[in-house]
């Protein structure tokens, strides 16, 4: 078995870019960078040039130089959106060579909230699968930020394939009373980092028990654009119990309620070379017991060097799972313990085609307005007579 020697960034199976938009997200990525030996390709996007300069992430993109003047978006999501619109070409160039975009944003602020939907839209147009990892503000941060976060979340759901929400409030419950503010934020950043890391490790590595891009694609595309994410870790002899306890009884998945409600989930187990088969079996059984009957559980495992005695569980669960047309179901023993499957190549072009088909179904005759009587102007499969903002799914409030 090949343990961590493969060059991940050049792995042709699934090219993943982790992009953080806004100050909060860039902090998360910085955190990942600090305690990760082989970090994935990461990009930091911000309107604040000083914050960007402080970040250690190699790929930095300063947006909205004209509109925000490098001073940040001042908590105004509209300004963030305009900044992103100003530099669409640069954003496009950044994502175009990847298959999967893990978009990290802390909603509520200006840049993250405003820019994330624009970036997701661009990624969608370029045929990437987009997973957005977002946090929503703590209640004490004020209603304005909460509302702005909700609006941003709604827009992001329209553009991203799946939005994985991590409400800071939920994490709040996991912290002991009297935790200092800075520590609370650091904790949020750590949890986000762990989730991203779990997912990335799972997809990018040649694992013992493979989950691949198509598994993820199936999950997120049928998730009703909303996924929940959970993370649990343990060490020592009862590491499995610790990790399971943290996950199934912790606040992140609402004491197991999310698992119980979900129709499908992706489970990633990361452990050291001493990771035992019986441990995997145990984890699988516990999840099967906790989940609703007939839930689709896909499990992958990865062995990391230097992780002796450690175990981490990452879960992506779809509460609003709508099974795809072809049959879905439990994983079988073959799936679990059979030979590693051939990894599917992500169908970038195909996805683009699917989107286009959806769009033409949606384009009602009425959207064409005064052009409804004449032959449509079709360009690359898009009907140019339909207003551009409609085709791009941008909402104009009236």
């Amino acid at each position, binding site marked *: 078995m090949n343990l961590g020697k493969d060059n991940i960034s050049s792995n042709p199976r699934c090219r993943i870019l982790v992009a953080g938009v806004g100050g909060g997200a860039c902090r998360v990525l910085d955190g990942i960078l600090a305690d990760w030996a082989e970090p994935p390709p990461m990009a930091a996007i911000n309107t604040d040039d000083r914050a960007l300069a402080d970040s250690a992430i190699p790929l930095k993109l300063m947006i909205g130089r004209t*509109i925000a003047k490098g001073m940040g978006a001042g908590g105004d999501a*509209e*300004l963030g959106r*305009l900044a992103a*619109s100003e530099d669409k070409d640069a954003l496009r160039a950044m994502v175009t060579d990847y298959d999967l975009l893990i978009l990290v944003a802390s909603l509520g602020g200006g840049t993250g909230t405003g820019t994330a939907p624009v970036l997701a839209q661009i990624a969608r147009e370029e045929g990437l699968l987009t997973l957005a990892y977002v946090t929503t503000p703590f209640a004490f941060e004020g209603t304005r930020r909460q509302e702005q976060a909700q609006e941003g979340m709604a827009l992001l759901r329209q553009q991203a394939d799946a939005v994985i929400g991590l409400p800071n409030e939920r994490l709040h419950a996991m912290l002991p009373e009297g935790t200092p503010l800075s520590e609370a934020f650091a904790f949020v950043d750590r949890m986000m980092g762990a989730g991203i890391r779990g997912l990335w490790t799972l997809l990018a590595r040649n694992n013992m028990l493979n989950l691949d891009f198509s598994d993820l694609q199936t999950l997120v595309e049928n998730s009703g654009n909303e996924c929940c994410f959970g993370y649990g870790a343990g060490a020592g002899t009862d590491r499995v119990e610790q990790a399971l306890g943290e996950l199934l009884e912790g606040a992140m998945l609402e004491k197991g309620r999310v698992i119980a409600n979900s129709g499908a989930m992706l489970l990633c187990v990361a452990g050291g070379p001493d990771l035992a088969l019986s441990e995997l079996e145990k984890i699988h059984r516990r999840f099967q017991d906790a989940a609703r009957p007939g839930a689709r559980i896909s499990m992958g495992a990865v062995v990391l060097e230097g992780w002796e005695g450690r175990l981490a569980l990452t879960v992506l669960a779809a509460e609003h799972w709508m099974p795809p047309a072809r049959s879905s179901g439990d994983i079988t023993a073959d799936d679990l313990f059979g030979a590693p499957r051939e990894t599917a190549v992500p169908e970038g072009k195909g996805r683009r085609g699917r989107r286009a088909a959806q769009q033409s179904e949606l384009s009602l005759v009425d*959207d064409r*307005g*005064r*052009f409804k*009587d*004449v*032959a449509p*102007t079709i*360009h690359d499969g898009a009907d*140019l*007579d339909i*207003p*551009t*903002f*409609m085709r*791009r799914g*941008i909402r*104009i*409030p*009236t």
Partner: protein
Amino acid sequence: MEPIVAVEVGTNRVRVFVGEAREDGGLMITAVGDCASSGVRKGELFHFESVSQCLERALHQAEDAAGLTINDVHVALSGSQIEGLPNRGEIPVEGEIGPTHVEHVCRVAREVTLPADREILHSIVGQFSVDGLCGVKPEGMVGQTLAADVLIVHGKHARMYNMVRVVKGLKLEVTDILFSGLCAAMAALSAEQKLQGVLLIDLGGGTTDYMAYAQAKIADAGALGVGGDHVTNDIAKAFRLSTVEAEELKMQHGDAMVSAAGRTRRLPLPAGAGETLRTAKLSDLQNVVHLRMEETFGLIRARLQRQNLLPLLGGGVVLTGGGAYLKNVAQLAEKVFGLPCVIGGPRNVSGLTANLAGPEYATGVGAVLCAYKNACQRQEQARGLWKRLGHWFGLS
């Protein structure tokens, strides 16, 4: 020389221009007929009777102003169906290259197979090469192969036929059909710009024509079935307004760039009797316009980029057509293309009063200019002075 008449049947206006040759060989516009258009959408005729009436009115205006009777016209044609196709013809030669060789290679270069429903509108000779040496004047040279690069502008036969039918219905003869983008380039670009490489975009009501000159020849041409009417329609859809109201809003507040100030400014929207007054953020309006214009420019940019033409456009971008009046449109074009951009209008002609110098007159004036140069060339040819075929098209 007889006065030259050019007809431009646009989506929003129908215009007739009359030009006469001056003694010094220049051209002077002596009369104009102009009236609102109806029966045209996206540059395509769809209601012949309305088009015919509009054209008749414009012709009468021009006849009255010029004091003459119009018998034959040149027609400027646009529409999304028009496409440019670069082609190269090559022939083996022996000894010194003469006019017959040049004529032969041009004929070969023009021989392309088009779909049955298409017809060549223009074939424009860009440059000649002798044994791989590009941009030469071939007559008198010695070599083994002679090549000609041409750009073939072609359109749908049915569309041309429709246009001809309307004109003939008014008891007029069509001398020639010209691609309106070429006409606009003719009028608005200087020889120097063409040498440097330049992109002309004519922003019409229903169509957007473009013409790219690179390395001193026409490198690409085409038309998109998207124009100012689309901007209006987008606004109408976004704010639930009638086309007329949306047009008004576009004229007053339309802006191709989203401004920071627009986010705090609200505009009252037209409301019917009994409706409560609605308002919209200026930045939303700006955004609707911006998205459309950015997309339109982006489509042209993508096409040029595929042919690696963008780095060759040292002369920047010139915008003509009524759409050039849109606020900040040049700024947006600069951003999309990464090239300097200016608003152009008819030049290279005299007799233009100030009210004919606007960008919207480039196509019509250019059509007269095209026709005039064609006529001059024919005269010269008739006099036996054989000139390089179509040389004026590339560089005048």
